[in-house]
């Protein structure tokens, strides 16, 4: 249990704050998707602002798999699919809280810009 906690802490410390690329890739894996599915989904939810390169996605997924943030599965049609793990969910949740704080502080101070 102690090892588990240490690993989780290590992951949170090394990933937070997340890059926009890593955040959107992990966000898209809240349901299992294959590589191309991740790219299309991120394009869709960011209105094509973020167009991820397949090398970037593959590199991020490989690192996340090695750190236990995501897990890799193989489908009957031989496609590789990726899924978030429990540690991955904790990481995503911590990053969402950080972004929420960022957003709320930004909103609170935004009005002062126009005073």
């Amino acid at each position: 249990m102690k090892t588990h906690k240490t690993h989780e802490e290590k992951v949170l410390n090394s990933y937070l704050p997340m890059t926009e690329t890593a955040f959107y890739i992990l966000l898209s894996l809240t349901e299992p998707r294959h590589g191309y599915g991740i790219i299309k989904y991120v394009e869709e939810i960011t209105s094509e602002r973020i167009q991820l390169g397949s090398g970037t996605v593959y590199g991020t997924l490989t690192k996340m798999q090695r750190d236990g943030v995501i897990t890799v599965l193989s489908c009957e049609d031989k496609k590789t699919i990726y899924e978030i793990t429990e540690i991955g969910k904790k990481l995503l949740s911590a990053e969402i809280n950080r972004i929420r704080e960022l957003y709320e502080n930004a909103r609170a101070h935004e009005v002062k810009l126009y005073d």
Partner: protein
Amino acid sequence: MIKKFRPLWNLDVDNMEKWLSRMATRGYHLEKINFITRVFVFAEGTPREATYRFVYDGTPEGPLSRSLVNHGWRQACQHKKWYLLFNPAPENKIRVFPARDDVLRHTRVIMYVLGAITLLYAFTSFVPLLLISLAMGNLLSLLHPTNVIIYALIIYLWIKLIGSQRRMFAQQGDLNRKIATGAPPPGKPIIKWKLGWQYSPDKLEQWLENMELQGYHLYRISGLGLRFWFSRGIPRRVKYCVDFQLSPSPGYFHIHRETGWKLLFTSRGFDRWSIWSKEYPEGEKPPRLYSDGAHLLKHARRIAVTHTLLFAPLLVLFAINLNLNLHGLPDRGTDGLFLFNTILFCLVLASFGSIIIRIWLYYRRQKVSAGK
């Protein structure tokens, strides 16, 4: 209860899984594996279908993800990073399987270890014995029973490992590594030679892109990556990407293909180089394999560090040899062998040194371009 001894089970994982399934259909259900003694213990019961998968997983959570549990997978046993997962359904009825990525990576590590042992044996035992046998004109000593057993064991282990690696790769997409081929275009091909492009891959990309802009369409690269075949056509815009990966998983080939990249070359040795291309219309931004500078730079650093680690020890070794040759034997004079060795060592040092310099210059170019 029956026990079966399988000492080399981890060299032939996929065949072991099939064997466990066959045992289940004959009524022998795996009870436990003694990973130390390599004994598989079975309990007798009703014959039934079952599918097994070995997984190598170092994460604290283990390999049983939510999707795997939802598709009927359970843990049969575990030892350190090795897990054996079990599904009570026949293989053709299962839709989701654990991926082979980590087992493939583990098998590759075993292959490197076996490669080192093979080389060590070849240089310390086989080659000296061969030279002595040739000098004595009697090659029969090479066929001493102990030697024959060692040759057979090494060959057997290589066949097992390579076979297992290929089959497992094929389970996750047998077309993954296939290079884009087709009928050769009509007309006389233009063949160009390129040596050492691995040490400045960005220059190869630029050269290929310029060739396409001049109407030279690349359609084939030789197996060693030395010869490039072009056909004449209309000028076109093609983005090339020379990519380096230490141990690409099946997903690597899949993801690039799905996003429209065409694989023109992939090496099979220690250097895992792949050359990808993608045509794009005029007026559009060229497609990118790496969409952010940080990943591009990381990729360049991986190339630079890996090749430095590969060539720096050789550089040091030849520098020591050169030093010994120049100062180690002061009374020997300057005979032919001394001159030959000095020139040879200088040439080798210059070539290894230039490789390391070229590769770090490439890294610097990428750093400058990422900073822009």
